């Protein structure tokens, strides 16, 4: 494959760029550390990425509609709080699971409904609900840390047929996400809304319902991510979800989804999430200060967007040159 073919491939399928970057980073890390290329480390990396990757699947759909959800970290925290509190009060797994998942979906749907009916921009709306959901969570638990029962650990550290449970859950959600995006009307409509909300409305697509549905779906998967997170850390802690919205959005953008909507893939977002964990892994191997992580993440994100922008500018000028040549 010539360099040009690769370049065209990347410009058509943006998520391939993050796959290549991930492979290169993995290669470098495997040279730096002998334990890197072991199956158990590979599994550990996927388990570590599971929460952000699952949330990134939902966020991909929202960003595809040219929306954004800043409140996902607060939804993660509120649903964790709800589950922990329900387990404490009722000790009934069925009730706790069902209520948590229904509420998570409801919180997402509320975001979508507010965006659709009040027409305040998604950024302001979800910034406001971020504050509301976070406040509600602390109100609910009285600002206390609540442990979850030991058996919950199965969701975080258990294995089925040798595969860690978080990886299985993540894989299921990714498959559902890929299917929804490519094979269902919801996926097609979401893209259409992101490309042009006006044309979507004029062609009588159910813009309102689709918008609410994508926010609700994001809430649903965030609720599932909350269960895995609770299981992995052993209980509710006050810091859960703070800043995770930016990691999730970064994963989606690194995966090649356009922030302005209309184009993107679920797979890209998931690889983006894994890529971010690989960076942490590498920094960890180098014994870097935990404070430098943000600097590196920010720089990587900035570099990725800049490279994408640079290649778009080059493509644009190449097209202009072709046009000029044809005119001459």
């Amino acid at each position, binding site marked *: 494959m010539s360099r040009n073919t690769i370049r065209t491939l990347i410009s058509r399928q943006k998520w391939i760029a993050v796959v290549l970057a991930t492979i290169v980073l993995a290669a470098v890390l495997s040279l730096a550390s002998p334990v890197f290329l072991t199956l158990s480390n590979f599994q550990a990396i996927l388990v570590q990425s599971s929460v952000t990757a699952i949330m990134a699947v939902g966020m991909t759909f929202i960003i595809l509609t040219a929306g*954004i959800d800043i409140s996902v970290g607060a939804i993660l925290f509120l649903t964790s709080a709800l589950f922990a509190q329900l387990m404490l009060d009722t000790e009934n797994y069925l009730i706790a699971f069902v209520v948590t998942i229904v509420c998570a979906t409801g919180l997402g749907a509320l975001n979508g409904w*507010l965006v659709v009916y*009040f*027409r*305040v*921009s998604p*950024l*302001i*709306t979800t*910034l*406001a*609900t*971020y*504050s*509301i959901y*976070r*406040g*509600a*969570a*602390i*109100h609910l638990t009285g*600002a206390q840390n609540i442990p979850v029962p030991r058996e919950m650990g199965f969701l975080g550290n258990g294995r089925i047929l040798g595969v860690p449970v978080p990886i299985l859950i993540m894989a299921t959600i990714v498959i559902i996400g890929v299917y929804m995006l490519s094979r269902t009307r919801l996926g097609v409509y979401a893209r259409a809304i992101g490309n042009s909300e006006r044309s979507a409305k004029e062609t009588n697509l159910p813009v309102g319902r689709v918008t609410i549905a994508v926010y609700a779906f994001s809430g649903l998967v965030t609720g599932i991510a909350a269960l895995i997170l609770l299981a992995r850390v052993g209980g509710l802690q006050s810091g859960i979800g703070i800043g995770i919205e*930016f990691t999730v*959005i*970064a994963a989606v*953008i690194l995966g090649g989804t356009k*922030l*302005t909507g209309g184009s993107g893939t679920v797979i890209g977002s998931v690889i983006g999430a894994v890529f971010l964990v690989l960076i942490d892994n590498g920094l960890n191997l180098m014994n870097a*200060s935990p*404070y*430098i*992580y*943000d*600097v*590196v*993440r*920010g*720089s990587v*994100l*900035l570099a990725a*967007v*800049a490279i994408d*922008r640079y290649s778009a*500018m080059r493509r644009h000028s190449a097209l202009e040159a072709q046009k000029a040549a044809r005119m001459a």
Partner: protein
Amino acid sequence: MQSATKFLKSYPALAIIAVLLTGFSLLSPFFLTIGNVEAMLGANAVVLIAAVGMTVVFLAGGIDLSISTVISVSAVASGLVMAATDNVALGAATAVIVGFGFGALNGLLIGYFRMTPFITTMATGLIARGLAFVFSSGIAVRGTPYWMLDFGFMVWFGIPAVMVIALLIVILSGTAMARTTWGRHVMLVGSNEAAARFSGINVPFTTFSVYLFAGTLGGVAGFISIANLGNAIPGVGDTLLLIIIGAVVLGGTGMTGGEGSVERTILGVAILAMLTNGLNLIGIPFYDQLIIQGILIFLGTWMAMKLGTRRES
């Protein structure tokens, strides 16, 4: 009567202020005491200065998510310089230069390189936050000069000195936006970028300049935060982003650009300042304050949008 309704329609924030003012002064006898008002004014200078920067960015149709953590990193840098040299002027210069640097970076990438404001400033904001924690090793910077501590309590013309500085910045920025060519260019770029380009406005430079402006004000806000808190705190900006954006939109400046003004942002800052202060006085816990604050920001923005003459998205 009609003109009063019209006035309220163009400034819906005033209605919210009136309600908060009456409500809290009835609920707490301390709310309208000189001491409490002074405390409110002093505590909100940082937010007001940063919100002025954010307003100008909004007016140009952009957004600067990095401004809150630029406050942190410039506070830390300034704190370290002051601890080492005991020179306040040098500290102030450091804060401004750091803010200027981040503003210039954002401006270059967004104005000249045409990168998306949201993702660009999210990334530079992460970098700023990381640097604030790296430089300070994650703890408050010690060794603030005594003058800075006094400065935090100084009162000029009956108003806390830090708020006098913030108000001066509002007046200067407001005048610049309303009376200079630059201000008109910013408004036009925000309301219709294509038209701005066709009428010969240097759009890349105008965009560059608003981020430079916001970053620099982030630096000033960082310096002021040291006077307020007594130390440079690396996490000082972490919780401010919601309040800064909330204040701008509550004041009535929209995110779509071209509509609103710097002066309006004073109203937005006043609403959130009174809300926090009043709820504290009547003993509402912070988590319930978060809920009320979120609802108010959302409904206030919606009201401003509904009542204002602002066009649909």
